């Protein structure tokens, strides 16, 4: 009998009641991102959260990177609004994709957007996509528990697994040690080496691309999934890799988001989490390995980070290596530059096999425009 690691906070949250009616309730339209938050709370992806944060959790997360009960948590999960709802109300939140939930409002509170941005993103520069989003948020926040009454329909439902499903899946596969890989990109050879190096020491890998709002120029969700399908089909053992999506937006909060991503994967039942170079970073807002250092502050995370420096191809070694194992000068190294690979793909060229698997490149090139506009 294999026991999974406990979810964050000790219990997998499930806040679903499909028999409840929202017909007579005041309804508020929500975005797809908020709908994703709702489902993630309801299905325990965000355990131990049971709803949107009240001020005590929000403030504690900003200032201490912990919930009010001292559990590690680094990203605010909040509901912003500018309407007339009040404390004690029960309202229905509904999204275009069909997601519907009841929101029991416990607290309405003010917040300082500048402080939010400074603490979470380490900058107030409006050019940072996370800061921009915070500055565009409405003026008040509402906290309280939610209950999901209807799940939304989306394009990638066949890749959509909930933590109670992955936990059973991992048990059925006989996996005890599971490493999670977070991604928002199509895989190149460097990614494959990171994944396979980690996989060598555990029972299975959970490849978990983020599906949701991304910035212009990122690969489209569908392209990422098809590219990974091709990689796994051709280059992974079927019983060692699972591909499933995480429906949430990228925050680009670098180190803080690395901790958040690790907690979420712990809830799926993973024991290890890969943290690469500039995890969840954007531009030059974070140091390349800040997302490694931050884990030192969390001895109680309950999931083990595996840190990787970038892999590259070394002409002298004749193989894919990293700076910990290659003694040769930089001029022998070919780096897996996302920008360079992107440029080749835009020009309709298949990148060399030392950079990207042919099957992956062909999938990307089969799209007229594989990038987010």
């Amino acid at each position, binding site marked *: 009998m294999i*026991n*999974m*690691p*406990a*979810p964050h906070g*000790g*219990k*997998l949250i499930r806040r679903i009641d499909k028999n409840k009616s929202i017909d007579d309730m005041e309804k508020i339209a929500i975005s797809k991102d908020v709908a994703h938050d709702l489902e993630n709370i309801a299905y325990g992806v965000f355990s131990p959260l049971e709803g949107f944060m009240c001020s005590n959790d929000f403030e504690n997360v900003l*200032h201490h990177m912990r919930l009010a009960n*001292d559990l590690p948590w680094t990203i605010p999960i909040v509901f912003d609004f500018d309407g007339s709802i009040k404390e004690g109300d029960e309202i229905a939140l509904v999204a275009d994709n069909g997601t519907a939930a009841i929101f029991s409002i416990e607290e309405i509170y003010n917040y300082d957007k500048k402080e939010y941005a400074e603490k979470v993103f380490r900058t107030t520069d409006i050019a940072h996509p996370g800061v921009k989003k915070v500055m565009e948020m409405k003026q008040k926040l509402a906290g309280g528990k939610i209950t999901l009454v209807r799940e939304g329909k989306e394009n990638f439902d*066949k890749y959509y*697994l909930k933590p*109670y*499903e992955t*936990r*059973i*899946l991992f048990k*059925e*596969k006989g996996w005890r040690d599971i490493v999670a890989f977070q991604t928002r990109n199509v895989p190149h050879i460097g990614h494959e080496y990171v994944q396979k190096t980690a996989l060598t020491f555990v029972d299975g890998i959970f490849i978990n691309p983020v599906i949701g709002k991304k910035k212009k120029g990122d690969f489209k969700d569908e392209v990422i999934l098809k590219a990974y399908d091709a990689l796994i089909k051709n280059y992974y053992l079927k019983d060692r890799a*699972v591909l499933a999506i995480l429906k949430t937006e990228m925050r680009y909060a670098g180190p803080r988001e690395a901790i958040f991503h690790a907690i979420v994967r712990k809830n799926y039942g993973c024991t290890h989490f890969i943290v690469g170079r500039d995890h969840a970073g954007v531009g030059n807002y974070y140091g390349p390995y800040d997302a490694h250092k931050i884990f*030192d502050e969390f*001895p*109680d*995370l*309950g999931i083990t980070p595996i840190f990787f420096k970038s892999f590259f191809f070394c002409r002298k070694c004749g193989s894919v290596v990293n700076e910990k194992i290659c003694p040769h000068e930089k001029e022998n190294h070919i780096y897996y530059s996302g920008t360079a690979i992107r440029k080749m793909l835009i020009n309709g060229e298949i990148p060399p096999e030392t950079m990207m698997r042919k099957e992956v490149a062909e999938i990307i090139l089969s799209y007229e425009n594989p990038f987010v506009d």
Partner: protein
Amino acid sequence: MSEEKEEKGKYTTVSIPTPLAEKIKKRIEGTGFNSISSYVTYVLRELLASMEEEEEEVFSKEDEEKIKERLRALGYLD
């Protein structure tokens, strides 16, 4: 620590033997810990987390079979 003091009710005092406090003071010299309190907090968090029990999900046989059926239908299980 000054930020800690400012936040009323978020911190409490725990007494430890003075020789132990002295040992900790020496131990944290040149490390990232800026106070005995931050070190003790770190160690206690680590200790308590290591004592967390593994969870055993409780599903009825019927529920578990439904989940496995879905996983098979999606191609995750044979």
